[in-house]
């Protein structure tokens, strides 16, 4: 929606000749001759090697269907769950992962013609048994992480919680105390709402200390 001249452009844009147009409602970051267009909203489109948090929605004969907060449903094959070849029936499949279970998975292949394939074979992946899942707009995930992970590390340290950020806009918060978990959820929601404002990390820092103080009283 915003036209440009001769620049190096990154992000959500398209070009006709030497004229550049934004293709989404977003923010523009101008740095010398580099212009970056950052979308404010959007759906998650799977990419290879993305870490995602999904929910099992169906158990099939040899696979599970996984809702990954995207227009495309994820597929988790039996071979991507066990490292050894195993033969199991459908009933035992639902004993391993059942409908409603939340999993931490990785996208191994996606090319638009077929549904994205997931894996939980690697370390740290698998079924999630504790914690809270927060859902935000996937395009705001970089904001939650912050520059080189500054935002997420700050929340981790101050609230003493473990945060796993899925690229699909789902964030898993595991805290030692449920109160801190709830606080972290509030903080993440605030980041989502104010993602496009400046000086976000500092403001969130003071917001957290305010919340912690209130909690202490």
């Amino acid at each position, binding site marked *: *929606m915003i*036209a440009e001249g001769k620049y190096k452009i990154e992000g*959500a844009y*398209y070009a*006709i000749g030497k004229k550049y*147009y934004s*293709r*989404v*409602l977003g923010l523009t970051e101008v740095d010398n001759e580099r212009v970056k267009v950052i*979308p*404010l*909203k*959007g*759906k998650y*489109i799977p990419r290879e090697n993305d870490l995602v948090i999904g929910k099992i929605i169906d158990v099939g004969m040899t696979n599970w269907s996984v809702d990954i907060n995207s*227009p*495309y*449903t994820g597929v988790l094959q039996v071979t991507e769950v066990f490292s050894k070849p195993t033969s199991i029936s459908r009933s035992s499949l639902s004993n391993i992962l059942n409908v409603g279970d939340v999993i931490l998975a990785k996208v191994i292949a996606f090319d*638009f*013609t077929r549904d994205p394939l997931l894996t939980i074979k690697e370390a740290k992946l698998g079924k999630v048994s504790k914690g809270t899942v927060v859902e935000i*707009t996937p*395009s705001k995930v970089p904001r939650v992480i912050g520059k080189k992970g500054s935002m997420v590390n700050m929340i981790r340290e101050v609230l003493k919680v473990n945060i796993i950020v899925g690229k699909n806009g789902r964030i898993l918060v595991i805290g030692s105390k449920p109160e801190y978990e709830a606080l972290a959820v509030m903080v993440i929601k605030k980041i989502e*709402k*104010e993602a*496009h*404002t400046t000086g976000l990390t500092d*403001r969130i820092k003071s917001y957290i200390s305010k919340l912690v103080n209130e909690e202490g009283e």
Partner: protein
Amino acid sequence: MKKVSNITEVIKLLDENGIRSDGRRLDEMRKIKIEVGVLKNADGSAYIEMGNNKIIVGVYGPKEVRPKHLAIPYKSLIRCRYEMMPFSVSDRKSPSPSRREIELSKAIREALEPAIFTEEFPRTMIEIFIEVLEADGGTRTASINAASVALADAGIPLRDLVTAIAIGKIDGKLALDINGIEDQYGDGDMPIAMMPQLGYVTLFQADGIFTSEEIEKAFEMAKKAIWNIYEIQKKALKSKYLQIVKEVDINE
């Protein structure tokens, strides 16, 4: 629709000074108000008031296609439903979809589709729901204006916003943005939708008789008005986020 039977004299759409029945000049638009993000559950939404027209639009998507066999392997399916509320006109309108509504749904969909990067989301669908709360002429153009804003609000990649306006003919003269009475008793109606930045026309309909000079003149009139509406659309989109910036500043 106004009752015609007991009106004996011909309704005067244009007086001696070139002022229309609602006090506008021939090249004057009705007041437009657009609000963005009015619905919480839809991915994108917009509300428009264009004169007496009141229209609300909700957009979902891209999402999984249901029923599945409708999915298109190389692009996104666009679904559009235009619906008039039973209370939107003075004689109650039956809530079942009429011939006109089905036709307009298609016309609006085809006006919006060129703007959307559909090929980026194969096997998905984008749903556009247009509800006309109150109708007073030119609902299809107002619907297009609101729907393109709602699409942008949903974060769907667009080539440009689609902006539309209708040109009418009353007493042999071209009039911008005709209202209900002018549409009913006038000599013609020509809705035009454009992607202003790119200069593409995505909808061009006409009923009534226009000479080729008139069409050219009408197109120029429409273009000018479309740029004005375009600015209003952009402002509406920005205002949602500027509002939050303002709130943050006040709190500090």
